[in-house]
């Protein structure tokens, strides 16, 4: 039995072990995920091992603040694993800008998300704000998952320009790509401190045991 969970547009089965989203393009898989059918609605399993947002939900994140009809700026889309689920959540009326600077993964992304009418792929570095401004609109939610040393600066820059007021933003921090010599705890504390200067932190989740040394922050723009 697949039923609604506490989070909007995310479903879970009766023993609460797996989470699902409704497949926007029935019959099409994006990665090697499991597909369940119930009452003629097709659900795609959301694998916490390959998606950090799903890992956060498994770690009892109460709300991911991505709702139906939202416009999302997705920085670091890679081949579109998490991106496809975000696209499922926002639905036909919503929209996702999928940004990635690498042409190799963008090639896969274009093929993977071909049928989805609500995703626009952008081959662009998230660091180039002026260039991004020419290609996106204002957004309701920003999701960022890039393994860069400067990921916090990029996040703040993008929030400043593209996020609407009172909008939410999600940041996946990979401690190992910021500094391998420091302790992850120290890095997360520094980031928390830097985020609190201009934003309100709503939620903070570790992604153990699915991802090592990762932390997911959810913030709100003042």
């Amino acid at each position: 039995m697949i039923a609604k969970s506490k989070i909007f547009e995310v479903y879970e089965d009766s023993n609460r072990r797996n989470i699902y989203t409704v497949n926007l393009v029935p019959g099409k898989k994006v990665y090697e995920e499991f597909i369940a059918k119930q009452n003629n609605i097709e659900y795609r399993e959301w694998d916490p091992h390959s998606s950090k947002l799903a890992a956060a939900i498994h770690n009892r994140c109460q709300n991911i603040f991505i709702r139906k009809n939202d416009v999302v700026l997705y920085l670091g889309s890679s081949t579109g694993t998490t991106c496809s689920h975000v696209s499922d959540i926002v639905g036909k009326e919503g929209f996702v800008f999928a940004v990635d600077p690498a042409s190799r993964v963008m090639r896969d992304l274009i093929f993977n998300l071909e049928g989805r009418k609500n995703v626009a792929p952008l081959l662009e570095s998230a660091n180039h704000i002026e260039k991004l401004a020419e290609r996106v609109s204002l957004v309701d939610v920003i999701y960022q998952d890039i393994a860069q040393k400067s990921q916090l600066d990029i996040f703040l820059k993008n929030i400043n320009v593209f996020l609407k007021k009172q909008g939410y933003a999600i940041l996946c921090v990979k401690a190992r790509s910021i500094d391998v010599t420091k302790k992850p705890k120290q890095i997360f504390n520094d980031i928390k401190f830097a985020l609190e200067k201009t934003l309100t932190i709503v939620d903070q989740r570790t992604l153990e045991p699915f991802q090592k040394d990762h932390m997911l922050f959810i913030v709100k723009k003042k």
Partner: protein
Amino acid sequence: MPAKFIFTNILGVFVFNENYKLVDGLLFKDLDQFDEKEKHEKQIEEKHGSLEKPSGDDLYKILEFFKDKKYLSELRKKNIALTRVSVKDSVNNDLLIIQTIDAVEELNRTINLLTKRLREWYSLYNPEVSNKVKDHEKFVSSIVQKKKDKLLEELNIDKNDSLGAELKEKDVAAILLLASQINNHYKLRSHYEKYLQELEKETCPNLASILGVTISARLLDHSGSLKRLAEMPASTLQILGAEKALFRHLKNKRNPPPKYGMIHEHPLILNAPRKNHGRIARALADKASIAVRVDYFKGEFMGDKLRKDLEKKIKNLR
């Protein structure tokens, strides 16, 4: 109300007034027009007089204007078209070099694996050849070309003294089939190596002349592109490929830092006395770093000069 702001995106050029209402605009029909956006901006600016580019709160309001169903679907169409073009344009010689060197390395691995099997297999029939001929390539080509009797004759071994068993014709044929397949692999590899040389002559002649074809291709493979390699400091280039040792050192300073990475396979280092390896690696990386920057900005060929400097420097080492 007079027009105040001018804003360009992939949809077109838009003119807004103080209240962020659309006053005038020009929609781009295709991406070529977007490439010439400065020309179109000028045209519109002439019409309206002085216009300013929005920033801060003004940019916020204007971006909000595009957050609309109508514009979003247009943005999607244009973004897909632009992304498709830029994915297509992103293919360059760097990527070809990377794929070729990867193919060569994979062929190497396959050849080694298969040749080991062939030696075992062929030794049932004729162990003396495998024992005497140590070089893989020579071994494979000789058993493909010559029969058992002739091979033994060349090695001055009597036919009746051979330890090998007498196999049926079809059993021998099965072994030789594998041998001819490996032989083809060797041919393929030498073809790719020649091709790699040609590619590097076009893309990075200076780097190839200092480090050699294989090492420079491996460095390119490791860094991802010529641009990234050119942006690296020489000290990073020196230890490229020794990340494990580097991070071991960074985490615990008791471990010594690495002196060289992939660059160590260079003959100048390999043929030097052991105590000089680190010094030569540093000098080599310095020159390679200069060379790759010259290559990236399409400068003249100066590999010979750099190499001469390098050899002079190494001679002065004790």
